[in-house]
Structures are given as structure tokens and as C-alpha cells.
């Protein structure tokens, strides 16, 4: 397999607070390969956004990377100074945030925000940058892009603004885009447009995407591989088809069971009993064991490592070499 573009190993993100240190991301590891779309799913507070923020070095203080490594194109980028990181952000890793209504500076024209970003990273004249800005707007599908270059953000609709945000993320042709809930704030009809746009652009530019969302539908449609986070830990990672149709981890299993289907309608939507533990009250052992139908003594006592079970891997004792699930799976 090719060298991964981004490699996250054992990432820990902590927030020192008055009540002690909260570990928002706890030992998460995954790879993103060039041109690949990795979906990152999980409930609110599962550590998805913090993982993304840690990669681009934009954790809100007092949050900090407490351990692990982040390697981009063979180079460690955790622990870089802000100035060094600044050259990575935008240039190598682009970002798209959740709310397009608040992502753009209301006081500058879209064109100015684009050219400013382009000229920060690429050695270009104002004219060349403007030409590139126009190209980008056309590429993301802004109708009448030439006229809209000098329009202000408030003159665009939400969906159009998210297109502008994507254009801004693509300014310097980054190798990776971290998209944090890019469609959550949009109308359902616009959501599909934005995801397919993101998908198309990344294919064309060979840009990888880390797509953070809690929407399994978006993941299933867009992603190549999926990482499922639970309580700041990686529960399962694998190709999208395997994770959706043949989940390994009981949490993923539960998550998939919760997706309603149109053909057979249960009287009630399925749900996983209980709720995700808060960061201040993380149970010992596996974070999911209080809610897990398969939990046994070992789950309570010991935290499971990630067991490789190609093509996916899961952090669950059921999939250890002496676990019970291995056989079931081979039979299935």
C-alpha cells in the first residue's frame, strides 16, 4: 500500500480544567491515504472535532496535544511552532467548518478573502490571484462567478456560502481537507449538493478529505473508509462498506441498527440504551462496556487495544485472538 498522507498515532488531546484534566481524545490512531475520503463519525463529544482541530493545530486553549504523533507526508506536524504550523494550514491542509453563515468575514468581499488566502500561500500577483479566485468560484459552482467576486458574504445564500468556504479551503491546492460537519447547518437538499461537490473536487484534485460528521448517510455516500469514535477513543476503523454492512464493534453495530430504513418500518426507532459517558466520568476498561450487550469481565477491567481484523479493525475484546466473535464472523 502507498505511504499514507496523514498518519495519526495514539493522539491524546487534553483540557486541563479546575476539576482536573479532561482527556477529549484518547489514543486515537488512523491513516488517511492520498485522495482518500475518511469519514469520522461519533456522537457529540466523542472527540471528532477535537481530533480535527489537533491536526491543524487549532485547539482552543487550554486544550493541548498531550501525546501521540501526527505525521503529514512523512513529517511530524505536532509540536511545530505556530508560525511553522501556519505554513501547513491552508497550504497543505485546508479546513471547512460547520456553519457557512459565520465562517466568512462579513466585512470583506468574497474575492478579497480568496485573493488574500491565495497570496498568503502562493507567490502570485494580485491580478493572477484574482484570476485564480475566479477560477475557484467557477469550480465550486457559483453561478455568475465573475460578478460575484466583489459581493459580500451576506449577499450569498447558506449553500452558496459553503461553496465559497470550500473554494477558500482549496485556494492553495492542499493535499488534505478537514471538513468538520460541512453540511450540518445546511438544508437537506443543499447537503447532497455540497457533499457531492466535495467528493468531485477531491477526485479532480487528488485531495484527501477527513470528513467529520455524525450523519451516517453522508458517510455512506461519500467516504471510502470510516473511523468510528466513542468517548474520545477509536472504536472501529475500516472500509465504508464493511463498517456499514458488517460492523465489528458492538457500538458500530448499535449505531447502524439506529438508522431507519424505508422498507421495513419498526414501530419504534432502535436506540442504544444509556448515553455516552461524560469525559469526567469515563469508566474503566472499555468506554462502551456500560451500554454493551456483550460486555464481560475483561471489558470492565481492561481497555481493549485495536484488533486488526482485515479489512477493518476494532477496539473490542470480542475480536481479540481468544474472543468469541472471530468465529462468528468467519462463518458469516
Amino acid at each position, binding site marked *: 500500500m502507498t505511504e499514507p498522507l496523514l498518519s495519526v498515532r495514539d493522539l491524546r488531546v487534553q483540557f486541563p480544567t479546575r476539576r482536573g484534566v479532561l482527556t477529549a481524545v484518547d489514543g486515537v490512531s488512523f491513516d488517511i491515504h492520498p485522495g482518500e475520503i475518511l469519514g469520522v463519525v461519533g456522537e457529540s463529544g466523542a472527540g471528532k472535532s477535537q481530533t480535527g482541530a489537533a491536526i491543524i493545530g487549532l485547539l482552543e486553549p487550554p486544550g493541548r496535544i498531550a501525546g501521540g504523533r501526527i505525521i503529514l507526508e512523512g513529517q511530524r506536524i505536532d509540536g511545530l511552532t505556530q508560525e511553522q504550523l501556519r505554513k501547513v494550514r491552508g497550504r497543505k491542509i485546508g479546513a471547512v467548518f460547520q456553519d457557512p453563515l*459565520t465562517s466568512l468575514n462579513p466585512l470583506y468581499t468574497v474575492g478579497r478573502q480568496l485573493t488574500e488566502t491565495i497570496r498568503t500561500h502562493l507567490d502570485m500577483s494580485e491580478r493572477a490571484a484574482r484570476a485564480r479566485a475566479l477560477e475557484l468560484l467557477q469550480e465550486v459552482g457559483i453561478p455568475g462567478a465573475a460578478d460575484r467576486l466583489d459581493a459580500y458574504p451576506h*449577499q450569498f445564500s447558506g449553500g452558496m456560502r459553503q461553496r465559497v468556504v470550500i473554494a477558500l479551503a482549496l485556494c492553495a491546492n492542499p493535499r488534505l481537507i478537514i471538513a468538520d460537519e460541512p453540511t450540518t447547518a445546511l438544508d437537506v437538499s443543499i447537503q447532497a449538493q455540497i457533499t457531492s461537490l466535495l467528493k468531485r473536487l477531491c477526485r479532480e484534485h487528488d485531495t484527501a478529505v477527513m470528513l467529520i460528521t455524525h450523519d451516517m448517510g453522508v458517510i455512506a455516500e461519500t467516504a471510502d473508509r470510516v473511523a468510528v469514535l466513542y468517548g474520545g477513543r477509536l472504536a472501529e476503523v475500516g472500509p465504508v462498506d464493511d463498517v456499514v454492512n458488517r460492523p465489528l464493534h458492538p457500538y458500530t453495530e448499535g449505531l447502524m441498527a439506529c438508522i431507519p430504513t424505508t422498507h421495513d418500518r419498526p414501530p419504534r426507532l432502535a436506540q442504544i440504551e444509556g448515553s455516552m459517558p461524560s469525559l469526567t466520568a469515563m469508566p474503566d476498561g472499555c468506554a462502551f462496556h456500560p451500554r454493551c450487550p456483550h460486555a464481560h469481565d475483561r471489558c470492565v477491567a481492561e481497555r481493549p487495544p485495536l484488533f486488526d481484523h482485515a479489512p477493518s479493525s476494532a477496539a473490542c475484546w470480542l475480536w481479540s485472538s481468544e474472543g468469541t466473535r472471530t468465529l462468528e464472523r468467519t462463518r458469516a
Partner: protein
Amino acid sequence: MRGLSGAMPPPIGSAHRPRRWDLPAGTAMIAFIVRRLIQSVLVMLTVALVGFALFNYVGDPVNNLVGQDTSMEDRAQLREDLGLNDPFPVQFARFVVNAAQADFGISYRHGRPVEDLLIERAPATLELSLAAGLFALLVGVPMGIYTALNRRGWLSKAFLTISLIGVSLPTFLIGILLILIFAVWLGWLPSFGRGTTVQIGWWSTGFLTWDGLKALILPSITLGLFQMTLIMRLVRAEMLEVLRTDYIKFARARGLSARAVNFGHALKNTLVPVITITGLQLGSVIAFAIITETVFQWPGMGLLFIQAIEFVDIPVMAAYLVLVAFLFVLINLIVDILYVVVDPRLRVGGGGGAGGGH
């Protein structure tokens, strides 16, 4: 802050009307200015009414003009000649028409036209207010930015502590303390007056002589200190607010330099409220110059007003009242226009604008 209501965009609906792009920005702008002008005229008329009432209800103008041994017939004749028997609206209209032409009558005490007195004194007050305003802005804004960007630095904490003193000490006390330190103990700066002034036409300026500039330092610090601390705290609060917004986070995520993010993106967004408050404060700097002018015996309009009160010199009081109100209204109008210049969302009559982040 009632005066602001005209500048606020109409309630923002989430629905966006793209037709707004075609609207020429100028039309909405002119309509806006005309609306504000009409409001300004109403405010001025109200103030004029108060000023006018002073004449009729604070003492008797005829009594103030004539000696004790004037006969009742002469008094009645004078009353008739001055038009004091005319119906109220006629008298008021006459007052307004005269006031609009800067004619406020003759000072009881000085025996000279009030407008001449004011014109003579205006440069002193305006120069003092300008110096105080510049001091407040040029020191307050950078300090506000600094304390917002280096929130935990010891210098920021020192600035904030000092600003607390500036906010809580009364103006006259600060003036007296400054005089004590810099004029009495150190002997560096004069304790009163304008120093040497140079006459340029009818305008007397202290800006052109070393002496005049030295005399300006203590009074303008005294007058501007409160505004400076206010501006500093306002800039700091606004800046902290803006730095938390998504568009600043997104600007950082695009790898823009700290300079571009802090000064290009964040500072400009803090300017809208800062301009508003600063503008309003500039009006009050002129109005509150009274106290500073008294402490420093500064020969400005404020001192003239205080002396007018002591002698119940009603024409001067009324004229000062109207003039200060006029300056307030004028400054407010300029502020509202600046508002529109800074914030593009207000330019098209408030279309969209949901992206304010405020």
C-alpha cells in the same frame, strides 16, 4: 443610545432575497441619511424648546434688562416692543429662526452678542476636545488591542488595573492630582490657561506654539482619561468577542498570518461598535469640558457657561445648550454614516446580514 435605532438594519429574516444585489447602494444610503436628518431636526427643535423656555420661566427677561426704577408703562412698552406678548408659537418660531442664524441675543453680563462670545471661546474648547479625543483614541485603541491579544500578560493586567482607576476617579480630582504632580511638584507644565495662542483669522490656536502645546497636555489628559479607559475596555471586549468567532477561526485555519488575522480581520470587525461609542463620547467630551475647563481655568465655552450660570446669563445658557445639542446631533449623524461605510451589510438596506456573528 436611542439615536442609534435609525442605523440598525430592519429585523433580519433568514430568507435571502438575491434581488438586493441590483439595488444601487447609493439610493438606500441617501434615503438613510435623509431619514436621519429629519430625526436630527426633531431633536434640535426639542432642545430649542428647552432653551427657549429658559427665557420665559427662569426669571423675567424684562426684569433682567431694565433697572429697578423703570415705570410700569415703560416695562409694558418694552414687553410689547420685544414681542413678549405675542402668542407662544410665534415667539418660539422667532427664537428658532434666530437660533438657526446663530443669533441668540445679547449677553446680560457681557453686553455683547452671544454668538460673538461663543465664537471667541469655541476654538479653546474644540482644540481641547480634539486633543482629548485623539489622546483617548490613540492610546485607548492600541491598549485595548494589546490587552485583548495578550490576555494573560502582566502588562495587560497592569493596564486594566490602571483603567479601573481612570473609570472610577472623578474628572476634577484627576485634574487636581495632575496639577499637583506635574505643575506644583515637578514644575514641568503650566497649571492653568492656554499659554500663548496664535490668531488665524477668527480662530485662536494653541497648537502652533510650544507654550500652547504644553498648556494643552494636562487638561486634555484630564478630559480624555475617562474616554480612554472606556475605549480601551470596549476595544478589548469587542476584540475578544470577535476573536472567538468562526470567521477568525477559519481565517487562522487558512494559514493567514497572525498580523492579517488580528489586524485585518478582527480589528475591522471591532470597529463598528467602537466608532459608535467613540462618536457618542466625543460629544460628551465637548459637553464635559465644563469641569476640566473650570479646574484648569481654560478659556473655553464650558467656562463661559459656568460663569453664565452664576450670573443667570440666560442668553448664553440657552445658546450653549443649543450648541452642545447641535454638536451631539452632528457627531451622531457622522457616526451613522461611518457605520455604513465600515459595514457593507448596512449598505443595501440591511438585506441578509445573518452572518454577523454578533
